[in-house]
């Protein structure tokens, strides 16, 4: 090949670069390692993390059993090593599965259309707010303090420079759910979006319909977020919402120290041209057969550039495919049974714990640690190889004697009983 190019050495390939841009020294990176050593290195790192602990952490990242089929499917090179399905004729596999994904997300959320994924739940939130701003022409967002604190931070980061004011409204100190009066008070005619999360950060199921009514009364859109997708197995879909923004990590991706997860955005028919992200649509091929392709791309950055609905390009397709397989394996009955198991486990443990809030909850709940600090309780549990709840002080100074506890189908009764013991 060098001969074909008429050069003598590989280095000649960049001989045209100005000398001052060439690296001053070789890379200080160890010589290449064998597969065996690499596997060893990461095992050693994995062993430095918690191993063999029972965990009661949730708060936006959930430990759910991953059906084996998930990795079976996503390990197929045809899914794993393909890219965005630009060339529909040789990407019908990906396109069809995304179309199914979009449909299932609609079925779960009660929406008309869903995109092919966002980065994660936290970035879906500002995308929803920006979308609401485009639709309403308004530039103010109200977000509930019961929404995930890190999601709220992300919204603030995104909104700051777009002339979008973000304000928070409070929660009912007893119920742990939205303070509707506060929301009503803060709502005004410049409000583009009211953003709530349900189940909220405390695990409590919000009254979405009431929030919708309040928002719509002032011409604002309601954005409903969720972090625990399993809840959709039993919860009535947020029909009052205009946009649903959520996180699908629960559907087959392990917590993986925080990522990659997959966000979704779903909305009503009338708003689809304001949806960011990739969309797959149904059409026909030249022989009249049903076919799928990427569509409405005039919303996207590669066509619309600075006027695009979002700058998102690469999304979380493989994680969305995992979720698709997960939803398929559990199916109609299974997703409900899974949700009921989560609910039942959480209520079993909660029944033995001093609860901070009285609102109805799904699989997370806030426990008052009373005399002790959350850390004190967690220390005791760690000695039993149990990771307890999340201390809330960092996010809610007013809840410094409280921890957020999560139970999924993977938590065993024996561990729950030990945790209950520690609360006493």
């Amino acid at each position, binding site marked *: 090949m060098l001969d074909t190019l008429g050069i003598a050495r590989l280095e000649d390939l*960049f001989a045209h670069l100005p000398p001052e*841009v060439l690296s001053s020294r070789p890379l200080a*990176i160890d010589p290449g390692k064998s597969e065996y*050593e690499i596997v060893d290195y990461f095992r050693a790192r994995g062993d*430095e993390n918690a191993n063999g602990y029972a965990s009661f952490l949730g708060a936006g990242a959930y430990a759910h059993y991953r059906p084996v089929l998930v990795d079976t499917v996503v390990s197929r090179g045809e899914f794993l090593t393909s890219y965005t399905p*630009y060339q529909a004729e040789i990407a019908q596999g990906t396109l069809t599965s995304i179309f199914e994904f979009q449909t299932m997300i609609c079925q779960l959320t009660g929406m008309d259309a869903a995109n092919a994924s966002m980065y994660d739940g936290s970035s879906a939130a500002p995308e929803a707010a920006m979308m609401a701003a485009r639709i309403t022409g308004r530039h103010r967002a109200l977000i509930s303090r019961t929404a995930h604190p890190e999601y709220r931070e992300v919204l603030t980061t995104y909104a700051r420079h777009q002339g979008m004011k973000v304000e928070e409204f409070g929660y009912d100190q007893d119920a742990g759910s939205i303070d509707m009066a506060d929301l009503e008070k803060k709502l005004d005619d410049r409000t583009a979006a009211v953003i709530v999360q349900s189940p909220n950060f405390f695990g409590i199921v919000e009254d979405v319909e009431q929030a919708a009514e309040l928002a719509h009364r002032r011409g604002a859109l309601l954005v409903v977020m969720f972090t625990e997708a399993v809840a959709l197995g039993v919860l009535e879909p947020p029909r009052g919402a205009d946009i649903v923004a959520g996180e699908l990590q629960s559907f087959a991706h392990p917590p993986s120290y925080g990522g990659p997860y997959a966000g979704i955005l779903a909305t009503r028919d009338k708003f689809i041209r304001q949806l960011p992200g990739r969309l797959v649509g149904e059409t026909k091929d030249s022989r009249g057969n049903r076919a799928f392709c990427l569509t409405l791309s005039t919303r996207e950055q590669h066509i619309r550039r600075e006027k695009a609905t979002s700058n998102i390009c690469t999304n979380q397709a493989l994680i969305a495919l995992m979720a698709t397989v997960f939803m398929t394996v559990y199916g109609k009955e299974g997703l409900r049974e899974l949700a009921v198991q989560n609910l039942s486990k959480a209520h079993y443990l909660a029944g033995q714990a001093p609860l901070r809030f009285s609102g109805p909850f799904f699989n997370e709940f806030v426990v008052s640690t009373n005399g002790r600090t959350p850390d004190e309780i967690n220390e005791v549990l760690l000695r039993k190889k149990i990771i307890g709840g999340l201390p809330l002080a960092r996010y809610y100074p007013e809840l410094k004697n409280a921890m957020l506890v999560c139970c999924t189908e993977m938590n065993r009764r024996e561990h729950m009983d030990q945790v209950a013991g520690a609360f006493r």
Partner: protein
Amino acid sequence: MIRKTRQHITQNEPLLFERSSPGKKGYQLPPLDVPEIDPAAVLGAGKTRSAIEDFPEVSEVEAIRHFTRLSTWNYAIDLGLYPLGSCTMKYNPRVNELVARTEGLAWAHPYQPESLAQGAMAIIAELERALAEITGMDAVTLQPSAGAHGELTGILLIRALLESRGNPRKRILIPDSAHGTNPATAAIAGYAVENIKSNDRGMTDVEALERVLDDDVAALMITNPNTVGVFEENITRITQLMHSKGALVYMDGANMNALVGISRPGEFGIDVMHLNLHKTFSTPHGGGGPGSGAVAVKKHLEPFLPSPRLQRADGQWTWNYDVPETIGRVRAFYGNFGVLVRALAYIMAHGGDGLRRATMDALLNANYIRKLIEPHYEIAYQAPSMHECVFSDDRQAKHGVRTGDIAKRLIDYGFHPYTVSFPLIVHGALMIEPTETEGKGELDLFADALISIAKEIEEKPEFVLKAPYLTRTGRVDEVTAARRPILRWRPSPPAKAAD
């Protein structure tokens, strides 16, 4: 002559919803070891649903067949060359998939006590170090989820720095060859976008740049090598120019695979850049993602990096949430950790020398393709190519055949097409990036295919216009799809027959 493919039988498969039948299931849960709770009882009847309407119900074997059959309709790197320009579709080593699934890593919860997350944090630290070394920058954040997300982070950093100096300024300059995410990002960050036209060598026109450069300009977003695969020869002058006006330079590092081990952006004046870890460092693209858009900065931008920041204290890794000047979070938790694991595994497998060698092989392959094809297609710019080569369809367009048609015909020859119609400054672009992981055999077949198509176009252009012929799906009607969008399956019409 098509030498690389033959037609074979493949299975049809309906949509899941059409395959579904009531009562089928593919799951089993362990028996519940606590009393079962009735959702309606604890959540309130109005708040619970009875069933997820029309949700699929299939058995395990139906599920695996469904997805296996679907998969056979896809092309992928594992099947052959995937020369999508700008996308860096290199081979994805399978060991990376294995290590990302290491128990203690995959199941690490982002909030587990730091004392029980030292392994994960060490990986992040090690990757930050390696990327700083590769880019010649001073600090790295791994929080952004993809390239575009990194761009946003980077521009917000610039804004924060300028704000701290008293004036965030108003405009961002972007060469007209830039990827669409650049202007889209600038807009989200609250800047007006000003396009800079490219010169006839495919490079940023320095004079044009100088003309518009004033005190309102916050930054230049430059891609280097740029999207026509050409190294910006005047990059040092450009960065000096920008700096002289108090403006910063953002580098879109999506094409960093042309520079790793050869040239460090930190050494030619770049203030901040992102890396597409899923491209340069080979995370499988998975039908569209996930990725990771690490951002590397010079010292002056470090104080503004997203919080939390990883740091070492008392011999332990710890997350520092006290970052007073931070731009804030760009996402929850710490980044696409699973992708970071893969990127570090890739870097470890190559080592310093191997990374440099990979870069040179990428250059070699792109230039080899260019050399073979140049007699038959119009090269967009004469300037030397780096990791990709961009042609225009000028010669073929005379016969009425456009880049998109050539792409479809390439499918019959057994290849995934190149990137079509990008960059926008090239009329009817064919943007070809073979990457370093291809061997001569596959490249020769690819060049032969393109040459053969060029001949077909001269002899029977209308034939090429109807390609592909050998796929189970004929040319897809994208126009109709957009005109009356059908974005989800609905049960209304009586279920269709298997197709």
